[in-house]
């Protein structure tokens, strides 16, 4: 029976993780590519230069190919709480449900309706109004991210509630909406989205430059991408580490686990890379590269700051919450943190070098770098995957930090068989859709933007471009 229940929890977690990670491959693209397409269209609106219109159509198509999967998997996200986590849903519904419902009413309606207007409104709305529909859809998608992150922040740092009859009950919606965690997570997420969107635009430009195609058309797109990418990716590195200080104060276990820091220390060194040292039995790495003092700085803002060790924290938790193991899987968290930070740094580096080369007018000819630019497209997404792994696995064993544990929060009504069926269905569907998505993206990203209003094969009836 115990075995059965731990299996169902693991399956439910596997399913949630799969859907969340998959969903979040498409979300950053929606958040980041949307505004860039809107910038292109704004430029066209201002200058009347057809080149901007072609870029709008070209990248607009890439945006929509992915937007569809984002919408579809978002629905799975919303349903999964009730389907797989009914105990959790009953426990947090009073609080957690509110931002989800507000997201629908205040944000997702806006995004979906106005995106429909944008896609089909080219010939029906005035140019100014049509441009506005895209910006409104972008605002909708950003608002949507905010409300979803408010909900998520309640799992990390519950605020604005009290416990009544075994349920979390909302006491202040302003405290909930004003959660510091949510603000930090929102800015970090939007910056990550912009990084992903700009990196995709830059990567596509590099791809065309490397093949010597459509160089004139893509040069302005590369410029816009770099103008976004350089400050955003660099700022997000700083902001992410700054976020770490907040996390240290609210979820010290997560930060200590992400550093495999077993003992409490001050002037703590940051481990860049290590072999071993990830278990209670083996706390000292057999090999490591460290930067003195940096961990203290990153987690407290001071080079001499004290960082609580895992062992100490676990004892504190035991004293507060009773016997048990309160440490997340250390090795996974350690590498997730580095996977995120190193991927993000790589993107920032590519952006800086790319901007330098663009400034020196050498970007289009430096083939090896162009291919680096193409490969770099994947890294914002890798950073997002690891970032969410750090956030969510690092919260374990809690589903709501300090209030409810994950292994007691799943749906009693849902059997192992059902979970296996649903996991199989989702994984199969996700894989098939990802393969088709990559195929479509490749096909559309490789086109000549002059054909952007049409089918790649050119056989479809050519719609009237413009007004």
């Amino acid at each position, binding site marked *: 029976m115990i075995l059965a229940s731990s299996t169902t929890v693991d399956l439910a977690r596997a399913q949630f993780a799969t859907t969340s990670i998959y969903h979040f491959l498409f979300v950053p693209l929606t958040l980041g590519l949307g505004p860039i397409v809107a910038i292109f269209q704004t430029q066209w609106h201002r200058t009347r230069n057809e080149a901007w219109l072609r870029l709008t159509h070209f990248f607009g198509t890439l945006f929509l190919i992915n937007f569809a999967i984002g919408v579809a998997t978002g629905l799975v996200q919303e349903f999964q709480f009730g389907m797989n986590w009914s*105990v959790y849903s*009953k426990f947090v519904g*009073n609080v957690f*449900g509110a931002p989800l419902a507000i997201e629908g009413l205040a944000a997702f309606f806006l995004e*979906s*309706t106005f995106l429909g207007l944008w896609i089909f*409104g080219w010939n029906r709305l005035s140019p100014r109004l049509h441009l506005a529909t895209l910006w409104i859809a972008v605002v909708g998608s950003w608002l949507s991210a905010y409300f979803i992150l408010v909900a998520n922040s309640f799992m990390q740092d519950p605020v604005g509630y009290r416990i009544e009859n075994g349920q979390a009950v909302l006491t202040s919606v302003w405290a909930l909406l004003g959660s510091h965690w949510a603000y930090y997570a929102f800015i970090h997420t939007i910056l990550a989205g912009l990084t992903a969107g700009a990196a995709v635009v830059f990567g596509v430009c590099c791809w065309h430059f490397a093949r010597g195609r459509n160089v004139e058309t893509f040069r302005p797109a590369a410029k816009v991408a770099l103008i976004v990418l350089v400050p955003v990716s660099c700022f997000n590195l700083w902001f992410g580490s700054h976020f770490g200080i907040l996390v240290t104060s609210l979820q010290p276990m997560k930060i200590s686990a992400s550093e495999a820091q077993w003992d409490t220390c001050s002037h703590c060194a940051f481990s860049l890379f290590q072999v071993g040292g990830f278990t209670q039995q083996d706390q000292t790495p057999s090999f490591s590269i460290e930067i003195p003092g940096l961990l203290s700085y990153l987690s407290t803002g001071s080079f001499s700051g004290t960082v609580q060790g895992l062992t100490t924290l676990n004892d504190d938790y035991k004293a507060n919450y009773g016997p048990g193991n309160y440490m997340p899987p250390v090795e996974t968290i350690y590498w997730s943190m580095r996977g995120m930070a190193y991927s993000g740094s790589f993107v920032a580096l590519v952006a800086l070098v790319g901007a330098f080369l663009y400034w020196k007018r050498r970007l289009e000819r430096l083939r090896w770098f162009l291919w680096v630019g193409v490969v770099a497209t994947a890294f914002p997404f890798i950073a997002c995957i690891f970032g969410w792994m750090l956030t969510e696995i690092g919260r374990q064993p809690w589903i709501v930090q300090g209030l409810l544990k994950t292994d007691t929060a799943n749906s009693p009504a849902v059997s192992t068989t*059902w979970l296996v069926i649903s996991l199989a269905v989702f994984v199969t569907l996700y894989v098939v859709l990802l393969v088709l998505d990559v195929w479509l993206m490749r096909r559309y990203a490789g086109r000549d933007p002059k054909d952007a209003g049409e089918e790649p*094969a050119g056989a479809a009836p050519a719609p009237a471009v413009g007004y």
Partner: protein
Amino acid sequence: MDLQNLWFVLIAVLWSGYFLLEGFDFGVGMLLPYLPRDDEERSEMFQTIGPVWDGNEVWLVTAGGATFAAFPAWYATMFSGLYIALLAVLFFLIIRVISFEWRSKSTSPRWRRVWLWANAVGSFGASLIWGVGLSNLLYGMPINSNGDFSGTFWDLFNGYTVLGGLTVVAIFAFHGATFLTLRTTGDLLERAKTASKQLSVLAAALGAVFLVLTVVVAVNRNDKSVFPPVLPAAIGVAALVLAVVLVYARRWAWAFTMTGLGTIAVVVTIFTSLFPRVMVSSTSAVYSLTVSNSASQHYTLAVMTVVALIFVPLVLLYQGWTYHVFRARVGGRGGEPTH
């Protein structure tokens, strides 16, 4: 009216909005394999709902979120109890959502056929399961003393709930065909009119039987009096019968109004029959979830009420405007998307 009851009504409104709006785009989806004769007509059919399906689907997202916020226990029991059914709904909705953006992305006939069928199967499947699912709330599911579903997938199926599923499919198809009579031109328009006529009698007959049975189920299994459930049921039957008459009288806009009213009446009859319960337990009446034992606290409901009062009118305003923008018939030149 206290806030708990107000939110029960609002959840019913959200489901009504979802059925009214996505109902016709599901209907159009189901007719995709039958009405168009060539690729151009197929594209035209997609275009009739292209600008609006996504906004329509948000009514479902909001209904889900609002149920989570206002009635956490209802949301938890319903979504975990209907697990496999909702898994199927998600599958159908995913392939359908993607078909809208992806079908036009290749000219390969096989690719286009696959996504056309994805839309059709998704529309049919999702409609069927919503019908089965909502009628289960009233007919009763095995729910234990913890408020958890304790049955198997097959417990969801019986004569009444299957009829509920088929009824929703038929009404949506009729609703969709009638919608197409207002949005298409030429041969496609003529075929839409024929389809609307053919579907009208079937949809009205199934609808009438289902609505009457719903009142019977409410009385027998949920301890309700005949009134008030009979009121929305009667309005629904009248609307559907009128829709048949209007279709044969070729008054398409009025017929569409009546199919819309009939669609809403199905939701309203089920919700009226449920009240004050939200999910009937077939294990024991005392285990049924009710408005008061599944609702959130007053403060959450008050916050949500303010949010709804601000945003629902706004949503209605800009969605209404969208329908106004895309009011012209599709066909020939005009509304073709450039993406």
